[in-house]
């Protein structure tokens, strides 16, 4: 039985309710068992409740545990890169309390049994809350729809073919229509696959100098524009993954203005790095979509600042050494991101693009609302999923110290500010930084 815990001296921020309490020893947050019992500036005016354990946050920030709606946890199928336990520990170290796993596993998550396997493993690991998306098509690469209604009942969060684009317009339009019966969202990786075929980085002067086949930025907007027309046609709910170009930000803004049920996210590499990170064939910077030009990066920052981009996902894609220590063209795409998600998002605040509550909104209730999970906010009676962090503490990103099984971060050695001090799931501390 988890006891009552009194979090004192914390600046309590809940972006969902516009709550921002200054740190005080008379106020804070009280959890009782798995839920939040009280939040307020004066709840400890008469001293701590009897039998409550006190956690003195010493002026740090306390906010809802982070929600990551797109991460590869690699189980089942690629446990040498990550598994549910290592991925959960990595999430906890990054302040993430809820992860929705992508269905690109082996076997893919296209039927209830695989979904139940994930749920069972998450119960066994018993760290963070792990949910999973299901594929839109059988096998994640066909033209046949999965049993969407049954999967939704079994807990599938939304439907996506993950890192593969749903190319067939008829299949996507039917999925967008059919999903409405069960109020499901279809999530797309928007990239025109034939235009992008064989490409390994952003097309341009740098790709020409490196002699690497390029992917034009237009591959993203071409597929996105088509998808938006299908959304308009069907009235379905659509979410664009990791948008990376200025054109995509504009298209999403226009679609939202036109009243379409459209949301999107981006990932830290797309607002914190540009194509130059590829440098001399750094395979850790080989991502899909590829790192773009500087003006695209700036447009992503602006899209986050004005709310066009709804949220930030980690895009966690663990790759082992054997998948990355290869010539650039042969190396796998992807980067780990769970453990650096908060620090990199805080850069937006430190650089003056977003204030702290807005930056945290991108990581808490906004992603939770897109996927329809009751997490990402501080409510009395709601789950005590919390993160305590110091937003200013300077640190260096050192992949060797990652909890994740894989170390493929393009941010190796980057100096950042922000340190997760404590991660709490259902009232239980599952991560605590070494003092």
């Amino acid at each position, binding site marked *: 039985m988890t006891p009552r815990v009194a979090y004192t001296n914390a600046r309590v921020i809940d972006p969902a309710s516009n709550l921002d309490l200054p740190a005080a020893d008379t106020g804070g947050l009280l959890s009782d068992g798995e839920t939040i019992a009280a939040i307020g500036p004066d709840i400890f005016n008469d001293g701590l409740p009897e039998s409550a354990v006190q956690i003195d946050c010493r002026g740090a920030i306390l906010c809802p545990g982070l929600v990551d709606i797109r991460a590869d946890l690699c189980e089942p199928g690629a446990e040498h890169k990550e598994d549910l336990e290592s991925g959960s520990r990595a999430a906890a170290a990054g302040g993430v309390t809820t992860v929705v796993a992508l269905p690109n596993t082996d076997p893919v998550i296209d039927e209830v049994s695989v979904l139940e396997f994930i749920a069972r493993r998450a119960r066994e690991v018993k760290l963070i809350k792990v949910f999973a998306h299901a594929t839109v098509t059988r096998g994640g690469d066909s033209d046949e729809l999965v049993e969407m209604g049954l999967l939704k009942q079994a807990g599938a969060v939304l439907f996506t073919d993950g890192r593969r684009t749903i190319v067939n317009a008829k299949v996507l339009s039917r999925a967008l229509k059919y999903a409405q019966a069960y109020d499901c969202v279809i999530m797309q990786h928007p990239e025109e696959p034939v235009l992008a075929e064989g490409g390994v980085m952003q097309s341009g*002067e740098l790709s020409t100098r*490196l*002699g690497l086949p*390029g992917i034009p930025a237009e591959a993203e907007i071409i597929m996105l524009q088509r998808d938006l027309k299908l959304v308009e046609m069907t009235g379905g709910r659509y979410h664009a993954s990791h948008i990376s170009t200025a054109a995509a930000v504009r298209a999403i803004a226009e679609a939202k203005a036109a009243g379409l049920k459209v949301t999107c996210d981006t990932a830290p590499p797309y607002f914190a790095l540009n194509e130059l990170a590829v440098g001399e064939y750094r395979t850790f910077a080989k991502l899909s979509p590829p790192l773009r030009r500087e003006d695209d990066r700036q447009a992503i920052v602006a899209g986050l600042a004005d709310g066009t981009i709804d949220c930030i996902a980690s895009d966690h894609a663990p790759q082992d050494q054997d998948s990355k220590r290869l010539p650039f*063209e*042969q190396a796998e795409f992807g980067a780990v991101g769970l453990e650096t998600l908060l620090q990199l998002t805080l850069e937006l605040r430190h650089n003056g693009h977003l204030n702290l509550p807005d930056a945290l909104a991108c990581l808490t209730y906004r992603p939770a609302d897109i996927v329809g999970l009751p997490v990402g906010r501080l409510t009395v009676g709601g789950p005590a999923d919390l993160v305590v962090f110091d937003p200013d503490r300077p640190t260096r990103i050192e992949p060797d110290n990652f909890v994740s099984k894989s170390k493929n971060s393009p941010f190796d050695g980057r100096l950042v500010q922000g340190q997760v001090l404590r991660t709490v799931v259902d009232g239980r501390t599952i991560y605590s930084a070494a003092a």
Partner: protein
Amino acid sequence: MSTPLRIIREKLNITQTELANLMGTTQATVSRMEAGQWEPNASQVQAVLAKSTSLGVDLSVDDFVLPNMSVSPTNGTSLAASEVGFDHRHLLGIQDLSPDEITFLLDLSNIYAERNRTADRKMSLLAGKTVINLFFEESTRTRTSFELAGKRLGADVINIAVASSSIKKGETVIDTAVTLNAMHADALVVRHPHAGAVQLLSEKVNCAVINGGDGSHEHPTQALLDALTIRRRKGHLQGLLVALCGDVAHSRVARSNIYLLQTMGARVRVIAPPTLIPAGMDRLGVEVFHDMRAGLADCDIVMMLRLQRERMTGSFVPSVHEYFHFYGLDYEKLSHAKPDALIMHPGPMNRGVEIDSAVADDIDRSVIHEQVEMGVAVRMACLDVLTRTDPRTAP
């Protein structure tokens, strides 16, 4: 065996250690110089000459040269060439080189080119050293050229062809590198179908690595041999107008040539259909043309590029027929270039695709065979400079 340095040392009546101190090197190095495996550089020669003057021993520069060396030091043997130096562990691309370093390599290559034309072209400079040709991609002429270069210098040359099938089976570049590294080669010549693979390999080995072509990235020795060919014919590179024609998009030869020619002060044009011009080409400082006649106007050099067979039929150009009509080099198109313009091709040629047979075989205009000849000299120079310091004893 009595080598020049040993004779000199006996004349001066000093020990190897004393000589090493004089030359600012180690006794082990002096020992290797005396064994004929190494040559002193110009400053070391000067130091010894100064010492001989102070001791009153009669000594001249000629005493440092092997009796059978036919090239005299006055027209610049490697003794003179060493003055500039080449401070790189590997030769991965032209992008890393300064104009002085390129000139140094070309000067040294020219010495080897002259030497190769004499009957006395077998040397022992690299005696006891091992050169491994590691080819992950089919090649006949580049591999043969490197093999010949290594053997002319007296090295033991081993050819390893890694079939593309075994790359697919999971044998990685790094596995191969680590295996070869254990064999203590002195130089590795590597060709790989993927850009950046040679650099990746170079990070995992202790010996010098020469890029023999990596994907569409670079082919530095090809650019050097092209430059040497041009310089011997035209006397200089500065100010020349060079046209590169054909599949620039997929060509490592084009990229290395663009970097080298621009570094040396030549102007570069590329002429190709738009599908064969890579993204961002204008930002490389070249002029882009889609019309052969306009592009060739006033050119001093016409450099043709090979068009891969799989790119000829519909994917990048509609047909061979159409390609040759608009971009194949024939006398009519050539007439727009300068009357003394040279025709070059890195080979192997697709006659009737990118170049007309008569033009290719024109002994007055085509220097295609000279390019092949210069290839051996350039590769000798590269092997020479990159094996001058012993990597395994370097700090």
